[in-house]
C-alpha cells in the first residue's frame, strides 16, 4: 500500500475526476477496486470461455454451468491473488469443470444403459431458436460458418489433452507457460499435445479447409 497519510483528506485537494482521483480512490477502497478488476477480467474472458466449454461439452446449458462455476470458484479462492494470475487459474478451473461434467455424463450413460427405459430428459430447446432464419446469407458468411462447424467437429474427435492444448493456445491465446498452468502439466507436455493436435486437425480437415 503506498504511504498516504490516512488522516489527511487528500481527495479534497484533487479534482473530482481524472486518473489521479481514480488512483487515490482505488487505495481508499481496495475491496471495491478488486471487485472492479475482477469484473473487467471476467468480462474479457466470459464469451471465449463459454465457446471453449461449448465445443468441449457440446451442450449450451452445461457450458454455461461450467463457466459460472469457474467464475465463482475464481472469485472465492483466488479473488485476492494478483490479477495477472487470474487467466491461467480461471482456465484451469474451467478445464476441471469441463472434465467433471464429462465424467458425470459417462457415469450417467453407463447407468442409463442398464435401465429398461431411457429416463434422460431431452434438452428443452427455446421455441424461437428452432424457427429457421429465412434471411439471405452472403456466401462468405456461410462458408465461414461451415468452416467453423468442421473445425469444431474435428476438435471433438481429438484426445482431451490435445483438444485443451489447441483451444487454450489458439482460441484463448495463452502462451506455453500459461497453458501449462491451466492444464496442470509441464511446458514440454503442452508443446507435445499442441503439436499433435495441429497435425491431427490438419490431416482431418484436409487441404480444402
Amino acid at each position, binding site marked *: 500500500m503506498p504511504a498516504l497519510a490516512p488522516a489527511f483528506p487528500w481527495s479534497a485537494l484533487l479534482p473530482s475526476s481524472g486518473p489521479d482521483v481514480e488512483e487515490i480512490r482505488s487505495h481508499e477502497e481496495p475491496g471495491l477496486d478488486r471487485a472492479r478488476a475482477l469484473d473487467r477480467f*471476467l468480462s474479457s474472458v466470459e464469451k471465449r470461455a*463459454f465457446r471453449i466449454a461449448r465445443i468441449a461439452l457440446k451442450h449450451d446449458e452445461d457450458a454455461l454451468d461450467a463457466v459460472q462455476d469457474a467464475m465463482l470458484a475464481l472469485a472465492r479462492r483466488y479473488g485476492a491473488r494478483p490479477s495477472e494470475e487470474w487467466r491461467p487459474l480461471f482456465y484451469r478451473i474451467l478445464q476441471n469443470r469441463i472434465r467433471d461434467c464429462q465424467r458425470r455424463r459417462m457415469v450417467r450413460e453407463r447407468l442409463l444403459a442398464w435401465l429398461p427405459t431411457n429416463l434422460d430428459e431431452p434438452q428443452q430447446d427455446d421455441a424461437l431458436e428452432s424457427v429457421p432464419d429465412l434471411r439471405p446469407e452472403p456466401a462468405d458468411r456461410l462458408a465461414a460458418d461451415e*468452416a467453423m462447424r468442421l473445425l469444431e467437429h474435428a476438435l471433438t474427435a481429438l484426445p482431451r489433452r490435445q483438444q485443451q492444448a489447441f483451444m487454450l493456445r489458439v482460441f484463448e491465446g495463452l502462451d506455453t507457460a500459461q497453458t501449462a498452468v491451466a492444464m496442470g502439466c509441464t511446458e514440454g507436455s503442452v508443446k507435445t499435445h499442441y503439436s499433435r493436435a495441429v497435425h491431427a486437425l490438419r490431416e482431418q480437415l484436409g487441404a480444402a479447409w
Partner: protein
Amino acid sequence: MVSSSYLETSFERRAQALFDRSVEQLDARTRSRLTQARSAAVEEAHKHAGLRRWVFRPAGALAAASLAALALVLWRAQEPQPLVTSADELEVVVGAESFEMLENVEFYAWLDQR
C-alpha cells in the same frame, strides 16, 4: 480479440479468426446469462473480501496482543530478582530490632567468640 502474432501458420491463424467470429455471434440470451454469472461472481468476491476483513483483522489483533504479552513475560523473567523475596525477610530487614543489632555488632561478634 486475442493477438495472433505468436501463431506460426496460416492454419492456426485461420482457426483463431473463425473462433473470434463465432464469439462475436453469440446470441443475446447467452450473453445475458454470462453477465448474470459474472455479477454473481463479483458479488461473491466482494463478500469474501469483507469476510476476510472481519475474520483476519481481529485474528491479527489477537495474535499481536498475544505476542506482546509473551514479550512482556519474557522481559520480566530476565529482570534481576529482588534481594528480599518474602514478607518474613522484609520484616527482618525493616524491623527496629535489626537496627539495634547493627549498632551493637561488635558486642555480638565478641559474644560469638566466647
